[in-house]
């Protein structure tokens, strides 16, 4: 057993990182992990942190390993953004922490999960720390791709690129780690297009499977203008509901924790002004988090929706690439007979255009409507 066990399909990365652990000459003070969503960027960073703290170079069992992996190690700080951006105040606090010597471990490790979400000023603050490294401090920065990270940060860190793991490797991980049976693991790994976290959820949660099924079914059902607008409304509503369900409990816990930290009386009829303003700030953050969550959920469902057109295109041009949706083969065939390759490409473009628009802050409903109108098919295939 080792800390690298769950990092499936990333052999070259594991090799690089273990070498840096073994040999301090290959070590550097800033690393940049990139890779598609679900490839395990932040898991790789945590595993690296554990290996750096562990006396055995990442046994996966000792106290150092376990606490580094679950985020409770005193010298491993994990920064995960839940808002839309990381602010300069947060970064300054991090930089300050980075200047301290490790308290119990061999290294002080700071993991920033979404370095692509740094505001410009926050990036400047971070840059100072990267330019003047502290001896036993190491920064592990994560982002979807190099292009998402400003160049000054890129040029001051060593790049580690994770690849999309093979479907079989993800399926094997689900079986081994989560005890999911073979056929389900394979279905989930394929349907999630190797996104490990999503695959796990699809395998475990039949509601998630149903939602995915409903989403890809849209491809063969939207015929009229009214139906397109309705379909967009549904996609949007499902995402909003999922977001509310996911955040209600957490929001309440955050508020309780904040009141406790501030030493405020939770039962007070009106809170003093300084506490009120902190509460208002928390509510703003929570709203931003909910908004981002809705957008993330919609983005995931658009990736699902695109997969059925991509499969139809694979059939249409007679390529022997593996399908993402072999379980929905009649829909795929139906689409492939109904549409030309050019039309299928047009549908795929409409979906990526919607993703781009939502990413640029267009209201999701409007972007989805424009997309759904372009996904209309001449007749309902009834499948």
């Amino acid at each position, binding site marked *: 057993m080792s800390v690298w066990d769950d990092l499936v399909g990333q052999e070259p990365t594991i090799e690089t990182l273990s070498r840096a652990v073994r040999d301090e000459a290959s070590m550097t003070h800033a690393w940049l992990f990139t890779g598609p969503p679900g490839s395990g960027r932040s898991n790789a960073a945590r595993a690296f942190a554990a290996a750096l703290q562990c006396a055995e170079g990442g046994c996966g069992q000792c106290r150092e390993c376990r606490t580094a992996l679950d985020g409770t190690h005193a010298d491993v700080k994990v920064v995960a953004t839940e808002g839309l951006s990381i602010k300069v105040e947060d970064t300054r606090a991090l930089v300050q922490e980075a200047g301290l010597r490790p308290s119990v471990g061999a290294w002080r490790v700071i993991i920033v999960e979404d370095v692509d979400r740094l505001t410009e000023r926050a990036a400047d603050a971070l840059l100072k720390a990267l330019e003047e490294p502290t001896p036993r401090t190491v920064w592990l920065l994560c982002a979807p791709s190099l292009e998402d990270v400003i160049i000054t940060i890129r040029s001051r860190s060593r790049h580690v690129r994770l690849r999309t793991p093979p479907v079989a490797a993800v399926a094997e991980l689900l079986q081994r780690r989560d005890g999911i049976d073979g056929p389900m693991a394979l279905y989930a790994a394929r349907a999630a297009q190797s996104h490990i976290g999503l695959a796990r959820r699809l395998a475990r949660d039949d509601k998630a499977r149903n939602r995915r099924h409903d989403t890809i079914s849209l491809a063969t059902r939207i015929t009229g203008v009214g139906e397109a607008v309705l379909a967009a409304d549904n996609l949007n509503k499902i995402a909003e509901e999922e977001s509310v369900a996911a955040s209600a409990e957490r929001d309440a816990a955050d*508020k*309780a924790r904040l009141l406790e930290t501030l030493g405020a009386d*939770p039962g*007070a009829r009106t809170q003093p002004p300084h506490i009120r303003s902190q509460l208002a700030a928390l509510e703003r953050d929570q709203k931003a988090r909910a908004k981002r969550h809705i957008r993330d959920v919609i983005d995931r469902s658009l990736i699902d929706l695109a997969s059925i057109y991509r499969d139809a295109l694979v059939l249409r041009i007679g390529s022997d690439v593996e399908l993402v949706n072999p379980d929905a083969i009649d829909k795929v065939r139906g689409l492939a007979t109904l549409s030309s390759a050019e039309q299928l490409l047009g549908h795929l473009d409409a979906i990526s255009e919607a993703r781009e628009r939502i990413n640029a802050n267009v*209201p999701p409903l409007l972007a989805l409507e*424009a997309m759904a109108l372009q996904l209309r098919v001449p007749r309902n295939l009834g499948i």
Partner: protein
Amino acid sequence: MTAAELSPLTLISGPEEVLVERELTSLVGRARDAAMEVVRIDAAGYEPGSLLMHASPSLFGGATFIIVRGLHEASDELQDDLLSLLAAPAEDVFLLVTHASGQRGKRVLDALKKQRARVVTCPAIKNDRDKSDFVQQEFSRARRRISSDGVRALVEAVGRDVSELAAACAQLIADTEGLVTEAVVDTYHGGKVDATGFRVADAAIAGNTPEALRLLRHAIASGLDPVPIVAVLASQLRGLIKVGSAGRGSPEQLASSVGMAPWQVKRARAALSHWSSEGLATALQAVAAADFAVKGGGRDPVYAVERAILTITGARSSA
């Protein structure tokens, strides 16, 4: 007013803050009139045991009105304390619980209902139909009248935010006399960006290109943000598509199925006689493109909105 007129158990159920606040204010007022001690407990940050402490008889006698806000986010400890209080009701303790939505707190909800708590519902005010109804209720509660075009103008001008809508109603009720009409609403809220957006959208959908462009340029020149104007264009076209594909039925029936107010359905139907569904599709797509341009995807956001308007009026006449 005596304490006896307050229900010993009240449940305020539903997410609409404006309605919840109003009910709370009125009940707290009654409790104070009855010289009751009012205790507020927030579910977030609840300290176990404090509910029962407040519910224990006070040295000085007298009744206590306990308000527990946010059962939907209550910890297990708070729920347990509520259940023990409900299992052994203390004399002279009046309990009010608010619950916005969801499954959390279900055991307490069941216990409250079983003990015949008075239930006040505060459903979410979401679509324009709900908002119109809300405005009508606000005015009839104050024994005032507002015309149907007055309701429309008010919802259009400030309806995006329910608390703003409530405040606008209160202001009109306090500051005006007699029937409140569209003209009265316009004097108070006519310059608001949303109202402008509706005028631009009305002109564009009616195919009046020069008027739509003139209103748009005027709005931009006076410093209004194009984003909400685009949002109104989208919502009006969306409404047309929904009404157009909803089939027959009275405006009232249709209103509830498409989440619009009856007057909106009537207006949409009148406009639809000049529109094909294909034309509406083109128009809505143009608005989405304009929104993207306004949000930074294009070089000239104002030009993007103008082009969307030209596309909309063009899609209409080609119908």
